[in-house]
């Protein structure tokens, strides 16, 4: 089944106002910025964003007014610390109120894994004694039915959608991933459906040559959008390195609300699509992020 479509159609078809969406599940790599920017351009509203470490994508979506709620362990700028739009929204309701459901990396991952497995909760030994748990809707102390110990119960967190940027996949959405995986696999299985952006679509023979490299099966996926540099400024191993400077520039420019609005107009609202965004960043700059050396995986034989 061919699920390849323009990113614009993937977003208009599968990202609904009010949806609960995981993005940035790679933690600090493979962040789906191209998809996030398209969500901003299509002015989606009242989204609940789910993540562990959010990179600056959450900050951009919050500043653009797309977000009503964040469920995450860390919302900042992975290059420079503070995420100003997040702070303005939480502290001063600018551009609007933002509800925050705090987690640790582990509790948000377990909440997704519970949903991925179809169980209402999972137990853990983390979180005990942390103020994160106080009055939490999804985290509560439980008593172990086997040992009587005190444990943390982590309630399932179902997703409407996971938006995931991958190195390569076939047209049916069977995706090869490499590099650190973060909470990507849990989010994919916890979601009602998945939208993939990818550096390249490959023939299904490439995927089937290495089934252990397939970490997201196509039957979870509804749409595949080809978006080279789709994780910029975050890296996608072997395709694009981190644009470190971008994080510092964003940090400096978004310190004020007006600064952010200028950034947003120039980089997102004022660019028609991801190609136009990349042109705005600068083709030379972007091409300079391509890996300079190849490091190929040792051969593996599936022969019979």
């Amino acid at each position, binding site marked *: 089944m061919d699920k390849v479509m323009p990113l614009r159609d993937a977003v208009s078809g599968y990202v609904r106002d009010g949806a609960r969406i995981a993005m940035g599940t790679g*933690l600090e790599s493979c962040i789906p910025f191209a998809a996030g920017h398209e969500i901003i351009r299509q002015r989606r509203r009242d989204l609940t964003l789910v993540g562990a470490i959010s990179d600056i994508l959450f900050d951009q979506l919050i500043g653009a007014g797309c977000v009503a709620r964040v469920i995450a362990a860390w919302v*900042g700028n992975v290059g420079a610390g503070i995420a100003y739009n997040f702070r303005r929204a939480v*502290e001063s309701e600018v551009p609007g109120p933002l509800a925050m459901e705090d987690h640790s*990396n582990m509790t948000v*991952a377990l909440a997704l894994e519970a949903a991925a497995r179809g169980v209402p909760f999972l137990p853990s030994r983390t979180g005990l*004694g942390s*103020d994160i748990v106080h009055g939490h809707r999804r985290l509560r102390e439980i008593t172990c039915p086997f040992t009587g110990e005190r*444990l943390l119960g982590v309630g399932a967190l179902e997703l409407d959608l996971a938006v995931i940027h991958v190195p390569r996949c076939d047209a049916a959405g069977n995706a090869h991933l490499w590099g650190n995986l*973060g909470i990507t696999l849990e989010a994919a299985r916890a979601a009602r459906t998945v939208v993939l952006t990818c550096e390249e679509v490959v023939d299904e023979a490439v995927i089937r040559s290495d089934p252990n490299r397939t970490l997201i099966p196509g039957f979870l996926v509804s749409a595949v959008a080809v978006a080279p540099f789709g994780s910029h400024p975050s890296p996608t191993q072997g395709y694009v390195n981190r644009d470190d400077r971008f994080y510092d520039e964003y940090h400096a420019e978004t310190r004020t609300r007006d600064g952010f609005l200028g950034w947003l107009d120039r980089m997102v609202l004022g660019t028609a699509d991801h190609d136009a965004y990349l042109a705005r960043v600068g083709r030379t700059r972007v091409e300079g992020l391509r890996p300079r050396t190849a490091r190929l995986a040792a051969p593996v034989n599936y022969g019979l």
Partner: protein
Amino acid sequence: MTPRQIMVVAAAREIRDGEIVFVGMRLPLLGFAVAKATHAPAAVGLFENGVIRDTPPAGALITMGDPPNIAGAVMCTTLLEVMSHLERGRVDVGFLGGAQVDRFGNLNTTWVEEGGRRVRLPGSGGAADIAALSRRTVVIMQHERRRFPERVGYLTSPGYGTGGRWRSEVGLVRGGPCRVITSLGVLGFDAESGEMVLERVHPGVTVDDVRAQTGWDLRVASPLSTTPEPTIEELAVLRRFDPDGTWAG
């Protein structure tokens, strides 16, 4: 030699050979590199994004997800799999930072007061997990009075809570901070009460300097010692991994 170099080397010395280390970024990452290259060649580093390495990264890093931290890693997997080693009790030592640390080693990375205003910080990330589940933790902080309140306003990552047997009372099965490495000295914790104790001051720093930057009546070990200076070997390794002094300059 800079205070940050002293901090990095002090961090390195907290890692024993063969240990499983939850590394973190910046100073502790450099500390891990120094330890590996000197006294702890068999140490293994875990990163919560899913990376397991037993060599320093292949280049400079801003985040643990940067390509030089992936290339040449021993293993790349999920956050939950790495965290399973932590929860199972396989992680010997975890490094933590934060906006604030209090008298009982509790960390706050969520909400602080600044000038009467509540300021929202990025949040826990993996810190609450590492603090709860490592066999021991080492905290690395700039030693400033606003960062050392008597009691954190928001307890993100548990130290010894209100002291004594608090950790086991709330259900934590192990761990707690063993060391706080600051820009002024090195602090430990009283085994009974869980209270922070100044154990070492960096060369040229006095007890009064430390007390002036600490928000409570800080206990001081007797005898108090001076942090040993980095060895030539340690400094050489540090220069190799941080040639521009970006992190430890």
